[in-house]
């Protein structure tokens, strides 16, 4: 077992880090303040292959393993957590289900523009009455001749605003409850598809979190993803991969907090010496560093397991649960190291603190992650 990165993974990480520090980091504070995203970043990232890291080369992707994907998400997130989730939601939540459950026609049609970054993707699962209880989704899909007709409302959809395509989970048979859910590939230009509202958030403000409304939204019959009734299974499998992405995002946020705290502690003097000399500060930094490493290794372990082609739900849940917790602790302690300066927006640590919170919530709250882990323990 080798903890070191191989040649390809090292190059991937170095390229992603360089791009993130040179092209994304300088824009991050402004994008957060104005809650706007620079779409040309998606184009640039697309050109470098960041929008389709783990998609096979024959569909225009990088053909790399999930650890490479986790490395890219971590590096981007360390510069800007919002950009990190834009890439992660696009890749794990939209590209992956099409890759895993799509027909060859669907893959040929949708994956190349997604992998190249020409088009952003999203997963439309959550509804006002269906969050953790994803099985109780109420959006309906009815077959009418050659078309499916969707009706319903989805909220809190990451990338919802700019997405060109959405994987939508809807009910095709209410009587079967979660077994009556199906998944659909819905292009954003389908009639009846509307982006209704953008949420204003505490953190990851540069990313779009939107409400999607389907009013007799018509899509071709061929756009059913998988078989009728597969929707819940597809959603759960999709979230497993997404959790690795969010874990990597959380690791990136925590690492950024650590790095800034380490640097500041060496520059800031009080009582005649750098505060990095004080044990209280040293112990904070030591704890942060240990936890960031542990979170990263859990994330890599989950990525490795996914690449093996075996069940990885427990490992992904553990990685996301732990990493999001670490992101919360590290960002809190980083502000503490900065003291008063950490509280003002001239320094980036307050943004890291605001960005960290969502990692405990989306793609399955920490509570849901614990359920997944406990079920896995008690079943096996």
């Amino acid at each position, binding site marked *: 077992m080798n903890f070191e990165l191989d040649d*390809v993974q*090292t*190059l991937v990480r*170095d*390229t992603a880090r360089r791009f993130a520090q040179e092209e994304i980091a300088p824009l991050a504070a402004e994008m957060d303040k104005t809650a706007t995203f620079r779409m040309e970043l998606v184009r640039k990232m697309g*050109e470098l292959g960041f929008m389709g890291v783990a998609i096979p080369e024959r569909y225009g992707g990088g053909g790399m393993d999930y650890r490479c994907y986790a490395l890219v998400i971590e590096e981007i997130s360390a510069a800007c957590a919002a950009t990190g989730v834009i890439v992660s939601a696009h890749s794990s939540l939209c590209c992956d289900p099409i890759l895993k459950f799509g027909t060859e026609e669907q893959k040929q049609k949708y994956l190349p523009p997604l992998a190249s970054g020409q088009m952003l993707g999203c997963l439309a699962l959550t509804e006002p009455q269906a969050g953790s209880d994803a099985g109780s989704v109420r959006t309906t899909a009815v077959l009418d001749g050659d078309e499916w007709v969707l009706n319903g409302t989805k909220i809190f959809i990451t990338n919802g605003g700019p997405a060109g395509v959405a994987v939508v989970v809807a009910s095709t048979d209410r009587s079967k409850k979660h077994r009556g859910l199906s998944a659909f590939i819905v292009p954003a230009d389908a009639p009846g598809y509307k982006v209704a509202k953008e949420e204003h958030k505490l953190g990851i403000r540069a990313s779009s979190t939107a409400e999607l409304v389907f009013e007799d939204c018509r899509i071709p019959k061929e756009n059913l993803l998988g078989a009728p009734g597969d929707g819940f299974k597809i959603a759960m499998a999709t979230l497993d991969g997404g959790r690795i992405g969010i874990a990597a995002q959380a690791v990136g946020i925590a690492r950024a907090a650590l790095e800034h705290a380490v640097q500041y502690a060496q520059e800031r003097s009080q009582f005649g010496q750098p505060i990095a000399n004080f044990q209280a500060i040293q112990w904070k930094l030591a704890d942060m560093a240990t936890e960031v490493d542990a979170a990263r290794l859990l994330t890599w372990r989950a990525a490795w397991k996914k690449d093996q082609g075996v069940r990885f739900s427990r490992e992904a849940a553990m990685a996301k649960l732990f990493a999001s917790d670490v992101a919360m602790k590290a960002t809190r302690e980083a502000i503490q190291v900065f003291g008063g300066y950490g509280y003002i927006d001239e320094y980036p640590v307050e943004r890291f603190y605001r960005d960290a919170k969502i990692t405990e919530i989306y793609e399955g709250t920490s509570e849901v992650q614990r359920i997944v882990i406990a079920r896995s323990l008690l079943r096996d």
Partner: protein
Amino acid sequence: MKIMVPIRRVPNPDVKVRLKKDGSGIETEGVNFLINPFDEYAIEEAVRITEKGGGEVFLVSIGGPENEETLRAGLALGAHRAYLVDVGGEWLDSAAIADILAGVYKQENPDLVIMGKQSVDTDNNQAGQMLAAKLGIPQACFAYKVELQDGKAVVQREIDGGLEVKEIGLPAVVTADLRLNQPRYASLPAIMKAKKKEVRKVTPADLGVEPKNRTRVLSLAEPPPRKAGQKVASVDELVDKLVNEAKVL
């Protein structure tokens, strides 16, 4: 067009250099290495030339097996193949490096050699010039812009007084400076392609070369710590100090 691009593996210039306790070299533990930044401008220029007019770019790096990682990074930037000249951990000065590069040159006969003007660890700014002299071919250093025309290169060079334009016949050695171009990022597909590109491992003996150092490092020491500056109350006081204390005027 065949272009030779020598590249050097250097410690990350953003990381503070520390000396080993016995002063025998720099501390490499925990330091990450990368392609000498000036060499990246050289790779980019060479790749752009072949993208426009056809041909191939081959890299050359001198050192140990760890240099393969550096060469892969260079291949991911668009170069087509590479040489790793294994010198088994020996320290070589600019002249010895020029000896080896001349050996590779004689095997490959490229139309152009482009390399960084200096490496950021040793900062000698000599190897390119020495190579040209050894081979008896023209040189244009600190290139700001390179234009190729039939059998010659028109090179704009940054000099202290401004820009000098020089026309040299090919084959020639050009050394690259900061503003020559904007190096690309290695895209993920390019990184995957780089895995399969050839890295040919040779020794100086294979090249028929016996590299010879003309210099010897006696010792290494950290620069003395900066002393505190002085604040002066007026320009007159400043001039007085510069004349009478620092004695620089």
